[in-house]
């Protein structure tokens, strides 16, 4: 069962999770998404919650629904890139906010990021 954070609705967390799967290529452009029931069982959540998340994803255009054959990831690669950019920016903003909490300056943050990035490059 997937663990969800306590401070916001579960359906918004499912939207995030599906977005991450789309931008990281777990779900490829134009590919078929799992059914509501299958995703609900996989994540251990109520099917109505998954339904609500899918509606949100359809509104943003990232997912399209075909009446008889199910839901598909958009074929618009640009849109996927935009969503990826948005998610990366959010993650970075959170990180920077955290570092500011420790009283870090901009150069300090950049130096640390470069240092860690080089380290992971060396190991991978």
């Amino acid at each position, binding site marked *: 069962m997937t663990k969800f954070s*306590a401070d916001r609705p579960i359906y918004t967390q499912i939207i995030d999770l599906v977005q991450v799967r789309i931008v990281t290529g777990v779900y490829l452009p134009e590919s078929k998404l799992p059914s509501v029931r299958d995703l609900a069982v996989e994540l251990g959540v*109520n099917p109505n919650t998954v339904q609500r998340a899918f509606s949100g994803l359809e509104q943003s255009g990232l997912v399209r629904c075909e009446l008889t054959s199910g839901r598909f990831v958009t074929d618009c690669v640009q849109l996927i890139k935009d969503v990826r950019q948005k998610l990366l920016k959010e993650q970075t903003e959170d990180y920077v906010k955290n570092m500011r909490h420790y009283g870090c300056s901009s150069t300090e943050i950049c130096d640390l990021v470069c240092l860690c990035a080089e380290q992971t490059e060396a190991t991978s």
Partner: protein
Amino acid sequence: MTLLQCKELTKTYEKGSAPALNGLDLDLERGKIIGLLGPNGSGKTTLIKIINGLLVPTAGKVLINGRLPGIESKKSIAYLPDKSYLADWMRIAQIVDFFDDFYADFDQQRALSMLELLDIDSRQVFRSLSKGTKEKVQLVLVMSRTAQLYLLDEPIGGVDPAARDFILRTILTNYSEEASIVISTHLIADVESILDEVIFLDKGKVTLQSSVDAIRSDKGKSVDETFREVFAC
């Protein structure tokens, strides 16, 4: 038509004692998984037993599909009691046969395949099973019916966390959109993500009926945290 309606439901077990249910009003729709939550002695089991026709209310009434509890309502309600009521000398396979004879909506194949998935040998005598395995068998029996209303009284209390996840998955896979499931439990954090809606019961009354997502977006807190706040001792 509303699946379940309770109107000013009151139950007093003994004259002069505090009522277990105190003028409770409740409407339940189809197609939902509902958590029935409340501290010990708030009336959860009493409510479930009245809906099932096992107890008679002192005042008020309960309607299932617009009718009072009776033979018809029992055909459409699958009930998991808080205690075992099965004949414990029977083997699991015999109990499955018994249910198959008894309930027209029982799916024997579904029951057997769930038992297999849970790695439970159906040749075992019920009495010889551990507490957790007994609970699993009873849940399998209940979820193998194609009912309109499932009433599960503490379905995950006695099983380990891994089996808990399996049981919640079993509930998710087996319910249909026309049915509703009511789960009474203290283990809110474990069931929260599978619920549509929660009902808070306190001193025999409904104090809150709300969707899980509404609680989370209004309060910025999980149902579990909200419960701890509302019922803090």
